[in-house]
């Protein structure tokens, strides 16, 4: 399903997209890394992960052709190439853009790692090529984390393939992350341990609600076509439960739509998950404010009691500040300009008086 089109049809288009500059740069860098039959790439794998093996410059190197029609065909072709590689010990094999299948929530998802390398000892390594720079040996942790999670999924998919071979080859849990060095386009690489990400993904995959179960829970005849009128479409999307949190904004095309719904309902999670956690059983803005004003809520509930104390302290502090600055409204949020020019002297101000 094209979630971006769906989001646009709902009137909350996603802000995602890729700049063609980034795309060009990424492709050019990947081509440079894989140039020459992957000589540079294999050198990096040898240097960072498998120094004990025979250097690829002196050993036999296989770069099988993986082209086939359709994702199923390419998956089968990849599996065949991996089996053949298992039959040629002592050689390095580079699989350029192999295709792997992984069962996600009951339906197969096709994955395309940048490369998979078969070592002379028969073990497999996932290679991820990224175009963000590795500056003085370290890269942006958020981006490395994302790359590690991505590679972990490939490792899982490869393990499924390996399990079907006898003897099952080892899939290495250290993947190779290849990035440009500093401000150049020269490749440099670093081994990234993805054991943790692999375990997390494995557990999440096992726990995912199966797509059929979600579909079964939907009312008969629900359709998500972007051509439907916005109202009907919104109702259809409503039928699938979603729990919005601000983190969704950076990950999901429908996040703005969910946010609108969540704000409409006055859910406090709109302000972030930690906020929700600190308010106890109160989950809507109105509930919380009413409890803070003392109009609702059980005073013996610690969350309510804390809220009332917070509200009292806040009102007191604002009143103190207001009287101190001569009521010129400097503390008012609207910033309508009336408060300009009222400055407290540099002299010491006791905050509590």
């Amino acid at each position, binding site marked *: 399903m094209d979630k971006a089109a769906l989001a646009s049809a709902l009137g909350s288009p996603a802000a995602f997209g890729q700049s063609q500059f980034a795309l060009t*740069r990424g492709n050019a860098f990947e081509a440079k890394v894989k140039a020459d039959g992957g000589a540079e790439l294999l050198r990096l794998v040898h240097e960072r992960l498998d120094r004990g093996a025979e250097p690829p410059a002196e050993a036999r190197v296989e770069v099988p052709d993986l082209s086939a029609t359709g994702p199923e065909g390419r998956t089968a072709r990849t599996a065949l190439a991996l089996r053949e590689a298992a039959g040629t010990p002592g050689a390095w094999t580079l699989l350029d853009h192999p295709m792997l299948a992984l069962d996600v929530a009951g339906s197969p998802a096709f994955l395309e790692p940048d490369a998979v390398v078969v070592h002379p000892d028969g073990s497999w390594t996932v290679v991820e090529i990224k175009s963000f720079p590795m*500056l003085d040996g370290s890269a942006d942790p958020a981006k490395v984390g994302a790359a590690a999670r991505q590679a972990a999924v490939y490792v899982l998919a490869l393990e499924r393939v390996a399990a079907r071979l006898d003897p099952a080859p080892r899939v290495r849990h250290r993947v190779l992350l290849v990035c440009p060095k500093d*401000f150049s386009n020269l490749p440099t690489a670093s081994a990234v341990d993805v054991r943790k990400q692999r375990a997390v993904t494995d557990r999440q995959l096992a726990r995912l609600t199966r797509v059929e179960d979600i579909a079964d829970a939907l009312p008969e005849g629900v359709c998500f076509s972007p051509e439907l009128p916005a109202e009907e479409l919104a109702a259809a999307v409503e039928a699938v439960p979603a729990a919005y949190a601000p*983190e969704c904004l950076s990950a999901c095309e429908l996040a703005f739509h969910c946010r609108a719904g969540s*704000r409409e309902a*006055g859910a406090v999670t709109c302000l972030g998950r930690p906020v929700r956690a600190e308010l106890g059983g109160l989950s809507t803005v*109105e509930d919380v404010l009413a409890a803070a004003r003392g109009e609702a809520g059980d005073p013996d509930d610690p969350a309510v009691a804390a809220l009332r104390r917070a509200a009292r302290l806040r009102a007191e502090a604002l009143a103190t500040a207001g009287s101190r*600055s001569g009521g010129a409204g400097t503390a*008012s949020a609207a910033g309508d300009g009336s408060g300009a020019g009222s400055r407290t002297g540099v002299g*010491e101000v006791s905050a509590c008086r």
Partner: protein
Amino acid sequence: MSLITTLARLEAVRTGRAQPAATVRHRHLSDRPLVFVPLTTAGEAGAPLGALVGTDRDAPHLLVVPQPRDRDLRFAFLADLADIVLPHIEAYAESVEAAERTETDPETGKRVKVEVDLCADAAQLVVPSRAGVDFVRLLGRSMRFRRTAEQDPETPHPAPPRVPLLGRWLTHYGERARVPGSSLLLAMTDLLGRHWATGQSTLEDQHLGALLAWIAPDGTQGATGAEAARRAELARDADGQLLCPPAGPATDPAFDNRLLAPAIERHHRARTALAAAEDGLEADDRLGALTAAEREIRGLVESRTRPTWDAVWRGLDLLRELPEGAHAEERWTRDRWSFTSHRDRILAGEPPQPRRDDAVTAANKLATREREQARLEAQEALDDPLVMAGRRLSGEAFAGEVVDVVMAYSESKRPSPRPLVTVRTDDRPHLGERVKVYRSLGGKPQTAEYVGPAAPDHGDGTGTGADDGTLVLRIMDKMGRGKEPEAGSVPEKGDLVCFTLFEHEQRGGAKLPDPEQTPWTHGGPPGETATVPEAADAQTEEDVL
């Protein structure tokens, strides 16, 4: 986020306007901040696309790289930037005042006061967002190891003369920005987010346009903050371009793909055509085409940076309406020391900051950040009743009325006053027996000791004192040397007092060894490798990145 801020955010959701999260301005603002709004090319590291920079809100300097992948054009951009930023910094670096600093005398090992220069003021740099701070750091890193033709005549692509120097300054600003409470390099989103609570999450507050829409919406009359913020985030014109372009340095992909890429392509073609021109007449024509293409790109870059530029200045206006916090000036003085020491390092001809700090420098930086964090938290609470309210809520401070003062004396040979003060408070401080508490007395902290709850029924000494809210404190210092405490140094009955459980002033940590004395556990002394100047970065062979 304390419950008080959460409450402010919820109030903002209800009213549709941002609510105050501070009653004073907790950061120093220069009278002449240098505002810098950079844009970068997607997918490239250190390939700026353009920038607006300057100190005059009505006349920013527009700098543009028409082909960001061209090394010469990038160098031209950096040289222009250096010509604007360095004179600004140097003007501040030249004006000094005398100050005293305590140093260890190398011969006697004693701590002595020495007279040194301190810059009377420091240059302040303001960028739109936290990503802008990172970009300043990145620019600094990309420039400080470049070699000019003068430094190394052999270098294949010499940098313009002042570019490495700009790199060192930007690196220093980027590094200083990591010290809590420093104001040399400020991000507008951080500044506004510190002083106002919006009705959206802190994640969404990173968008300058959306943040301002909550604080001071303009144009759209009557719209709530949420509506105005959504418009800032998502609204696009007929061309599919965002009405409020992202504050950068990253650009919107739709802008890259639909407007910028074709313009850069036209520029590229015009340049190729000019290079291929066979006679003067033809060349004149094609030069005209090239200039037109360049002008187009300049227009595009200006159209994406100008809204952000104006937003930053509007943010500065809003912040200037708040009175400056009492301790902000003191923290700014620390920034001035930092600025001065970097100036001195450059004047002394020291090499650029290394790629990796040695163990001692790294430990020092970490210790500084921890100390400044504690200092910032204490000072903000003392300056601002709203921040103090948060500390009172969490039991780290309490305020109340003095209900009784009983004179008492210490049991030493020369008895000193140790008056017992009974305070009634509604707060619930986490007090244990003999816990030290502090209050501000004429700008200096006065120490008191918790004795116990006041009511004799509860006087078993184990209570928290919060049961009936009356507690007894013993004042310990700041009462002068005489037998009778100095006037005004002991609270009187009916006074409103506020004590904190945290200290007001931070002590320095243990002294670290000199770099030459680094223990082997931390890599040992830097040795000879440290004296070799750092090599320049490896460069791409091709002319483009």
